[in-house]
């Protein structure tokens, strides 16, 4: 019944995200939209690093690329990644938001408009507040909001900020996130 999964993460999320991507079944039924901050000098190589462990293909999409289930879409370095209502990717080089480009807020907010109550959103470890506002929008649009358990996060600023601005459906450890994703239809 869900149509897409969107994940936001920053400092301390890389190991969590690789663990999640390596645990998904090859025929995972949803597209996975990834808006992850990276260090400024790590402009390339990130998609390759994620792909090594991932069971589903991960791409840095082209503008206007159409979104397919069972595939991961990583917001390219230095671009914001929006989801259009026609389920295509739209990229933008607009100014960073909250010092972030990609902005997790913007990916979550536009994904929420496109998928409404058919969207699952997960906020992982991170050192700033980006993503909190986006998760709130996702929740308001009827989506299912999950936050990584702050006690497990390497850096808990992002998850705590999210919990401050919105109610969520689950506070999960990495293991619980994986179990949950394995059971969605």
């Amino acid at each position, binding site marked *: 019944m869900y149509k897409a999964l969107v994940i936001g993460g920053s400092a301390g999320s890389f190991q969590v995200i690789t663990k999640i991507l390596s645990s998904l079944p090859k025929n995972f039924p949803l597209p996975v939209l990834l808006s992850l901050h990276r260090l*400024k000098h790590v402009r390339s190589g990130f998609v390759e690093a994620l792909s090594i462990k991932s069971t589903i293909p991960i791409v*840095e*999409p*082209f*503008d*206007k*690329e159409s979104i397919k289930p069972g595939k991961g879409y990583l917001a*390219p370095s230095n*671009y914001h990644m*929006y*989801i*259009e*209502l026609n389920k295509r990717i*739209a*990229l*933008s*080089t*607009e*100014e960073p938001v909250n010092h972030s480009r990609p902005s997790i807020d*913007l990916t979550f907010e*536009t994904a929420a*408009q496109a998928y409404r109550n058919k969207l699952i959103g997960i906020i992982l470890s991170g050192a700033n507040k980006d993503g909190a506002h986006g998760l709130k929008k996702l929740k308001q649009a009827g989506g299912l909001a999950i936050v990584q358990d702050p006690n497990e996060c390497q850096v808990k600023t992002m998850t705590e900020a999210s919990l401050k601005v919105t109610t969520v459906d689950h506070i999960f450890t990495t293991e619980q996130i994986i179990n949950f994703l394995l059971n969605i239809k």
Partner: protein
Amino acid sequence: MILSDQEVQYFVNTISNSSNYDFSEYSDKSLKRRIHKILIDNNSDLITLINKIKSKDGFLDKIVKDITVNTTELFRDPQIWQTLKYRILPRFAKNKNINIWHAGCSTGQEVYSMMILLNELGLLEKAKIFASDLNTDALNAAKKGSYKYRFNIGYLDNFDKVIKENPFNYEEYNDVPYNKYFKIDKVTDVIQMNDFLKQKPIFRQHDLVKGGNLYFAKFDLILCRNVIIYFKYSLQNKVFKLFHEHLYTNGYLALGMHETMLGEITSKFDKKGQVYRKK
């Protein structure tokens, strides 16, 4: 506050009814976001803004400028500049002239990047550089060639990668001093391009939506980077047709790292990486 599609439509219609500008084929999400930003910056609601657009002289032009996204960098994406340096520009070495058009040049950092690269290759003399943008404020900044040091400091790394280093031969290193091309003043926080570069380009205001070729020229190379991401597919195709018409056979079109050509028009180009060659 979230703008509805109807409100965006209302805004677009107001602009097209009161001016020559047409944003109806701009990409939905980013257009909506730009309007939203304008409302916040002007501390205004949509109705008030639209009334002001209709009644206040010069306000519409200001709003049109605010719609456009003007982020650009010196040697953004070094890979593409390395491709230009080693694979594309040397092909023009025997030409009498080299015509290059930066379509949507914004504040001009890539125009200067191109001239620096051409100069290093000994091709600047025979190059004609054309640069256009919708936004006249951005064009004026491009003409000045003066940039904030602290915003551009990271991009000096890009300069080193493209101009000083050779990715195919790690032992090669050309120690080109920055002041050959620009002066850095850390106190006033300015990077100032040198006069011989500033005097070269022919800057013109041009709206890709309206098409047409304001230079009455054909081009060996067109750069249009991170512009068409703001356009819908239909408008992207019109712009690609415009470029196709005004490229010489075997001329090149360079797009942004994550921009691509889709549909029928692709059959008229050979694609290698982010660079398209007209068949």
